[in-house]
């Protein structure tokens, strides 16, 4: 299990978390580099499996590139599984994991998670427009788009966590949502850059507005939630700091970073992290659909709102993906076809901006606590800013910068070939999203959390989230993003 852990007896291993960050950078960069080879005409990842909306299961799976068509759908699925198994097994060795256990757990996890994704692409679930329904010969559909498979994967994980605890225990070694989403975010840098390259003015405007997210999360949300936890619910300082950080900043990473900074007992931020994951599940199941219903005419507001309202990088960025699919589907049904990528890029920008300052905020709190509140020999040091900095962001920025340069500063041939290469890398981004959703579900054993005395902690979350975070996030998203829409698809 990654730094999202339900076992509160486990220590918070800052070192392991940082290793997981670097591992995500290495794997993400490797996928990006292999995908980039296609720019020079060498297709190294074309065998990766893709899933189309279907009514005939035999036609659902295909290799990404036609040059690998000889593999067939089943062959590309097995190849993708084998490649990920080898890559991730080699990776988790560096985290000190039991490779044999990981391989067995990953095999089962991949099978269930990808099967969920395939189920989500069934036409009765995924077909959106009347034209699509007619094409597949279905009279009705849930209209979830094929990204509804994320929701199916999440629900599969939830069922396993709450009804099959022994299976959840068996899967435990491979349940690493933080690792999977960090890899996905590094890879996402290429797609965001390709999207931004087409409209650099709009992209730079979005970056400027990301600053609002920092102000909101760190200075407004945190202060109010800390006050609520301390004064309304009577939590101690040790509980209130990770709780406020988890609810206001970015979930698991912030709870652990600030908990460590104020020298809280390891069990405290771990328990708070579990709470954050459970609420992220609830939010992912609700907010994208609310965004589709009420904000489909303001796609960028919706993207920013998801980034501000859903805590944990995994749920937020993946929630942005679902929101984009749902809004684009609804817009398409109304005759408006947006360029893909802008809504999820907005969500990602908001989350990345918030993530960047975790280390600094943790140091500020650590400095105040160790010098003014719990004075002791163990003082906060400036070096902790770097130690607690989420390193996977460096991977995202590197992939983004290289892709942007290739799209705008290299030869026209390379710029033309880059979107296909980014698309190839994006196949793996989607697969890591699927693994993230499934893992988050498996971590959410509601009965176990209730037994751990979650009621009062959950009450703080409910009051803060539904009474404050969602609405202020919506207001700020509206103030900064309303009236501006993604470019139309040509």
């Amino acid at each position: 299990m990654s730094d999202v852990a339900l076992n509160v007896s486990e220590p918070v291993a800052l070192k392991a978390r940082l290793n997981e960050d670097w591992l995500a950078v290495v794997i993400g960069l490797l996928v990006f580099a292999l995908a980039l080879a296609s720019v020079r005409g060498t297709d190294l990842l074309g065998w990766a499996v893709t899933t189309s909306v279907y009514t005939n299961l035999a036609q659902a799976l295909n290799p990404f590139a036609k040059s690998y068509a000889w593999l067939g759908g089943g062959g590309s699925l097995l190849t993708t599984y084998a490649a990920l198994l080898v890559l991730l097994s080699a990776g988790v060795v560096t985290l000190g994991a039991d490779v044999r256990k990981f391989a067995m757990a990953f095999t089962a996890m991949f099978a269930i998670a990808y099967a969920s994704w395939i189920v989500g692409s069934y036409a009765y679930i995924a077909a959106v427009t009347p034209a699509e329904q007619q094409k597949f010969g279905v009279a009705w559909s849930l209209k979830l788009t094929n990204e509804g498979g994320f929701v199916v994967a999440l629900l599969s994980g939830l069922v396993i966590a709450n009804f099959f605890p022994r299976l959840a225990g068996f899967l435990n070694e491979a349940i690493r949502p933080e690792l999977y989403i960090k890899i996905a975010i590094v890879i996402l840098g290429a797609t965001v850059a390709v999207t931004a390259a087409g409209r650099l003015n709009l992209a730079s405007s979005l970056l400027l507005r990301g600053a609002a997210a920092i102000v909101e999360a760190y200075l407004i949300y945190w202060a109010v939630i800390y006050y609520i936890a301390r004064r309304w619910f009577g939590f101690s300082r040790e509980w209130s700091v990770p709780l406020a950080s988890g609810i206001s900043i970015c979930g698991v990473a912030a709870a652990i970073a600030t908990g460590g900074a104020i020298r809280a007992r390891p069990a405290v931020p771990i328990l708070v992290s579990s709470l954050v994951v459970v609420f992220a599940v609830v939010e992912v199941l609700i907010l994208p659909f609310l965004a589709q219903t009420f904000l489909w005419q303001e796609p960028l507001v919706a993207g920013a709102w998801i980034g501000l309202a859903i805590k944990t990088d995994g749920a937020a960025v993946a929630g942005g993906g679902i929101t984009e699919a749902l809004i684009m589907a609804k817009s398409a049904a109304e005759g408006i076809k947006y360029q893909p990528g802008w809504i999820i890029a907005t969500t990602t920008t908001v989350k990345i901006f918030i993530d960047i300052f975790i280390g600094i905020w943790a140091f500020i709190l650590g400095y105040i606590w160790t010098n003014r509140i719990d004075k002791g020999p163990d003082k906060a040091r400036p070096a902790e800013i770097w130690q607690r900095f989420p390193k996977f962001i460096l991977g995202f920025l590197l992939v983004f910068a290289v892709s942007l340069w290739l799209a705008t500063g290299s030869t026209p041939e390379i710029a033309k070939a880059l979107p296909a290469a980014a698309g190839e890398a994006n196949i793996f981004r989607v697969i890591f999203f699927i693994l993230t959703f499934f893992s988050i579900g498996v971590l959410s054993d509601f009965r176990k959390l209730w037994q751990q005395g979650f009621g009062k902690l959950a009450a703080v979350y409910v009051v803060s989230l539904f009474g404050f975070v969602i609405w202020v996030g919506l207001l700020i998203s509206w103030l900064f993003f309303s009236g501006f829409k993604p470019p139309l698809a040509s």
Partner: protein
Amino acid sequence: MAPPDLKQEINAAAVEPLLPIEKKLIGFSLGLGLGLLVVLIAINHFVPIKL
């Protein structure tokens, strides 16, 4: 499962009064946050999103 004392601690901990430094932290954060928000809204107004 959490150690029993942790569950008990959550539900029956003695109230720690807010220290002056905590009040300062809350007040300063909110004040700075709202101030910066106003500045950003002004920037947003004068430098609108370019399509």
